[in-house]
C-alpha cells in the first residue's frame, strides 16, 4: 500500500497538469491545446526540463545548485564560440562543451564534497562568476550562429530546432510516419515495463494493485503518452530536442532508481551520517553528483544555443529558479532524500504550461511572475500538509 501511496503522488501531479491544460484551453478558446501550441510549449520546456531532472538529483542528495542557469549560458556560449571563432565542427564543439560542463561540475563537487563549503554558497559563487564569464567569452555581444561556417551551423540547428525526418515526403496535417513509430515503440515499451514490473513484484511477494486498477493505470498512462505523441505526430513530428529530453529523463530515472549510485544519493540526502556509517563514500558520490549536474547544464546550454540559434548574455537567466521550482513542484523535498526524475519532468511541464498559457492570454508580465510564485508556494504547502497528515 505504501508503494501505491508513493505512486499516487505522481498521478496527482499528472492530474494537476491536466487540470491546468483544461483551464487554459477554456481561457484561450482552445488556442492553448492546438497542436502547434502544445508542440511549441514542449520544445520550450526542454532546456528547463533538462536542468530540472538534474537538479532533482542534487536536491535529493540534500544539496542545491544555484549555478545551473549561469552554467547553461556559459557552456552555450562556449559551444557557439568554438564554432564561430575557432571554426570547429558540431561534433568536436559539442564534445568539448560537455567536457567543460563536466569540469565545472567537478569544481563544484570538489568544494562541496572535499572542502565542505555548503553547496548553496559554492553554486551561488558560480552563478555570479559564470554570468560574468559569459560576458567575457561573448564580448558582451550576442553570438549569432550565422557567423559560423554555414554547413556546420545548419547541422547544429537540428539539435534544438530540428524534427525527426519522415520516410515519405512530409505533408502538412498528415501523419508523421517516423514519429508515429517512435510513439508506438514508446507506448509498447511502457506497457511492457509496467507488466514486467508487476510480475516481478508478484514474484517477490510485494504488494500490487488489483489487476483491474493496474490495467486502468497503465491505460491512463498510455492515453497521456498517446495524447502527447499525437500532437507531435499530427504537427511537424517529434523534435530532436524532445527525443533527447526523453532519453535523458529515462537515463536519469534509471540511475536514480536502479543503480547503487542513485541509491547512495537518496541515502546521503536522507541521512548523511547514517550513509557514512553504512560505508558509503559520501564525498566521492557527491563529486559524481555535481559532475552529472555539470554535464546536464552543458547539454541544456547546447540545446538552448541551438534553439535560439545564438548565444546570448542573458541565456539561462533565472533558469535555476525554474528548475528548482520544477523539481520541488514535482515532489522533491529540499530537506533531501525525496524526489523523482519523472516528478521533476512533470513539474517542468507545469511551469512551462503556466508561462505559455498566461502569455497566450496576454496576461501582464507582472502577474505572470506573481502567479508562478504563488503556485510554487501553494504546491509545496499542499505537499507538506499531505505529508504531515500521513505521518
Amino acid at each position, binding site marked *: 500500500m505504501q508503494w501505491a501511496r508513493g505512486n499516487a503522488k505522481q498521478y496527482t501531479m499528472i492530474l494537476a497538469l491536466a487540470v491546468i491544460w483544461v483551464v487554459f484551453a477554456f481561457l484561450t478558446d482552445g488556442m492553448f491545446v492546438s497542436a502547434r501550441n502544445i508542440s511549441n510549449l514542449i520544445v520550450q520546456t526542454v532546456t528547463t526540463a533538462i536542468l530540472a531532472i538534474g537538479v532533482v538529483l542534487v536536491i535529493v542528495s540534500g544539496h542545491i545548485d544555484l549555478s545551473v542557469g549561469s552554467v547553461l549560458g556559459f557552456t552555450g556560449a562556449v559551444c557557439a564560440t568554438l564554432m564561430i571563432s575557432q571554426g570547429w565542427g558540431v561534433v568536436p564543439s559539442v564534445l568539448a562543451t560537455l567536457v567543460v560542463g563536466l569540469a565545472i561540475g567537478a569544481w563544484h563537487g570538489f568544494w562541496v564534497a572535499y572542502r565542505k563549503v555548503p553547496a548553496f554558497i559554492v553554486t551561488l559563487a558560480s552563478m555570479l562568476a559564470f554570468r560574468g564569464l559569459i560576458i567575457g567569452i561573448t564580448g558582451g555581444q550576442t553570438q549569432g550562429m550565422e557567423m559560423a561556417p554555414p554547413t556546420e551551423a545548419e547541422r547544429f540547428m537540428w539539435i534544438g530546432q530540428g524534427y525527426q525526418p519522415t520516410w515519405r515526403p512530409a505533408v502538412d496535417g498528415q501523419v508523421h510516419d517516423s514519429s508515429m513509430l517512435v510513439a508506438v515503440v514508446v507506448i509498447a515499451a511502457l506497457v511492457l515495463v509496467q507488466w514486467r514490473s508487476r510480475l516481478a513484484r508478484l514474484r*517477490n*511477494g510485494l504488494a500490487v494493485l488489483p489487476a483491474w486498477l493496474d490495467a486502468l493505470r497503465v491505460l491512463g498512462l498510455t492515453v497521456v503518452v498517446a495524447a502527447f505523441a499525437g500532437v507531435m505526430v499530427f504537427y511537424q513530428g517529434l523534435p530532436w530536442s524532445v527525443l533527447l529530453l526523453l532519453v535523458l529523463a529515462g537515463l536519469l530515472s534509471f540511475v536514480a532508481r536502479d543503480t*547503487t549510485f542513485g*541509491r547512495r544519493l537518496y541515502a546521503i540526502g536522507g541521512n548523511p*551520517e547514517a550513509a*557514512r556509517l*553504512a*560505508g558509503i563514500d559520501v564525498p566521492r558520490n557527491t563529486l559524481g553528483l555535481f559532475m552529472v549536474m555539470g554535464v546536464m547544464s552543458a547539454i541544456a546550454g547546447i540545446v538552448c544555443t541551438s534553439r535560439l540559434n545564438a548565444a546570448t548574455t542573458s541565456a539561462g537567466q533565472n533558469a535555476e529558479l525554474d528548475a528548482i521550482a520544477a523539481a520541488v513542484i514535482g515532489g522533491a523535498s529540499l530537506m533531501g532524500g525525496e524526489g523523482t526524475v519523472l516528478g521533476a519532468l512533470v513539474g517542468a511541464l507545469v511551469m512551462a504550461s503556466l508561462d505559455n498559457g498566461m502569455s497566450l492570454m496576454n496576461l501582464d508580465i507582472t502577474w505572470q511572475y506573481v502567479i508562478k510564485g504563488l503556485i510554487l508556494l501553494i504546491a509545496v504547502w499542499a505537499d507538506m500538509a499531505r505529508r504531515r497528515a500521513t505521518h
Partner: protein
Amino acid sequence: MTPAAQRSDPLLEMRAITRDFPGVRALDGVTFSARRGEVHALVGENGAGKSTLIKVLSGVYPHGQYGGTIVLDGREQRFGGVRDAERAGIAVIHQELALVKQLSVAENVFLGAERLRAPGVLDWTAMRAQATLVLERVGLRVHPMTLVGELGIGAQQLVEIARALARDARLLVLDEPTAALTESETDTLLALINGLRERGVTAIYISHRLHEVRRIADRITVLRDGRTVCTESVADMPEERIIHNMVGRELAHMYPHRERVAGEVVLDVANWTVRDPADGRVAVRDVSFSVRRGEILGIAGLMGAGRSELVMSISGAWGRRQAGALQLAGQPIHVHGPREAIACGIALVTEDRRRFGLVPDMDVKQNTTLASLRRISRRGVLDHAAETRLARGFVDEMHTRVASLEQPVRTLSGGNQQKVLIARGLMTEPRVLFLDEPTRGIDVGARVEVYGILNDLVDRGVAVVMVSSELPEVLGMSDRVLVMHEGRLAAELSRTAADAATVMRYATGGKP
C-alpha cells in the same frame, strides 16, 4: 510528605480517552488520574500509547481529535493547542530537550513568556533575577547568562524544569528524563522531583527504567496496547509485576544466556588510544583486549567512560587514533573509515538510531541493504529481486513486525527499527558485530527478541561486542565483561566473577 488528605484530591482526570490513527486505535478508552502532589509513573512497552496519551494531555492533539474528557482541577478542559495546555499549568519535558543552545539560560527559561518593560522590549533585569530564583529551586548553580549549549545534558534538563516552574506549572510531565543522564545526574534529578512533590507539584513520570520508577513514584499506571491495565500504589507493584502487566505474559528468561565455549581470537585490540576530533581530549586511553569467536563480550561503565568512543573508533566511525593496533584473525588491519571496517568484517550498530542509523524516508528493505549495496548489484545496477529476497530473509528470521518491506522505516516502533539496523549490520557478513546500547528505548518484548537474535549470532560464530548502560543486561548476556572508567580499561571479568557490585566498583574507579 504532604498530608494524605490532600494527596487523594485528584488534580487531573483523563476519562475514556480514545484516539484513532488511520488503521490503528492508539488509545482505547484510557483512564488516568493524578492526585495533587503525587509522582505518578506511566509505564508500558513502546507503542503502548504513552506518548499519544501525553500528546492528548498537552494539546498536541487538540480537542476534537480524541474521544473522552480531560478534567483538571474539577473543570473540563478543551485544549485547542499546546499553548492552552501550558496556560492551564501543564508542562512537558520532552526526551529531546527543547532548548535553544545559542541562547542563555535566562532567555531559555522565559522563552515564549518573556518579561517585558514595555510592549516588545525585554526586561533583562527582571528576567535575570527571576531566573536566578527559579534556578535555585531546581538546584542548578549556574549564572543565568550562561549559554545553554555550554551546559551538560543533566544541567539542560534542569533548565527545562526551571522553565516549567517559571511558568507556574502545576503538572510536570517528564518523558524518559534520565535516558541521557549519568548516575549522579539521575540522582540529582530524582531528588529534585522529590523536593517539588513536597511543595505540591504533581508529576507524571514516564520511563523504561523500572528501578527508577519504583524509587520515585507514588503510584504506577501500566498501559498496554492502548488500554489501561492497572493503576496501583508502588508498594503493590514489584518490578516483576510491572513487567508482567506491561507485556501481558511472564518473561521466564529475561536474559536468555546460553552456555557455550568461546573459540579462537577474532579481533585483537592493542594499546588503543583515541582523541576526540572536536576538542582533542583523550577519550580512550591505552585499551587492550581481544574478542573471541562465539562469545558475547559486554562493555560496562558509566556515561562518559569512553565505551561508545571505543567501539566507534574501532569501527572507523569516529575519533582520531593516537596509538594502537588492530589484528583480525592474526592479520594486522588498518581501519580509516566505516567502509574499511565493513570490508574487514567489522560492523557497528550505533547507539543513536535516528541520528546515525536510520534513513527515515527509505523503506525497510532499502535500510536493510544500505551497507551492502555491492551484494545486491552488478556493475552498479541494483538487482531489486535479490534485494527483496535478502531483506525478507532478515525480516522473517528476526520476526521484525512490518506491514510491508516497502514501509518507510520511520513508521516502525523502536524495537523493529533496531532489528532493521541489526539486519543491516549482519548483511555485511561481519566477523565481529559491535552494538552500542542495543536495547535503548525499546520495549521489554522486543528486548528479549534482540537478546535471542544475539545468541543465535554467537551460535553461528559471530563475535558480539555489546556496550550497555544497563547492568543487568550486561551481566545477564555477556560471557566476559570489560569495565571502563575514564577512558581506561578498569577490569576484565569472567561471567562468574562479574556481579553488579564488582562491576560498579571498577566503573566508579574503585580498586579490587
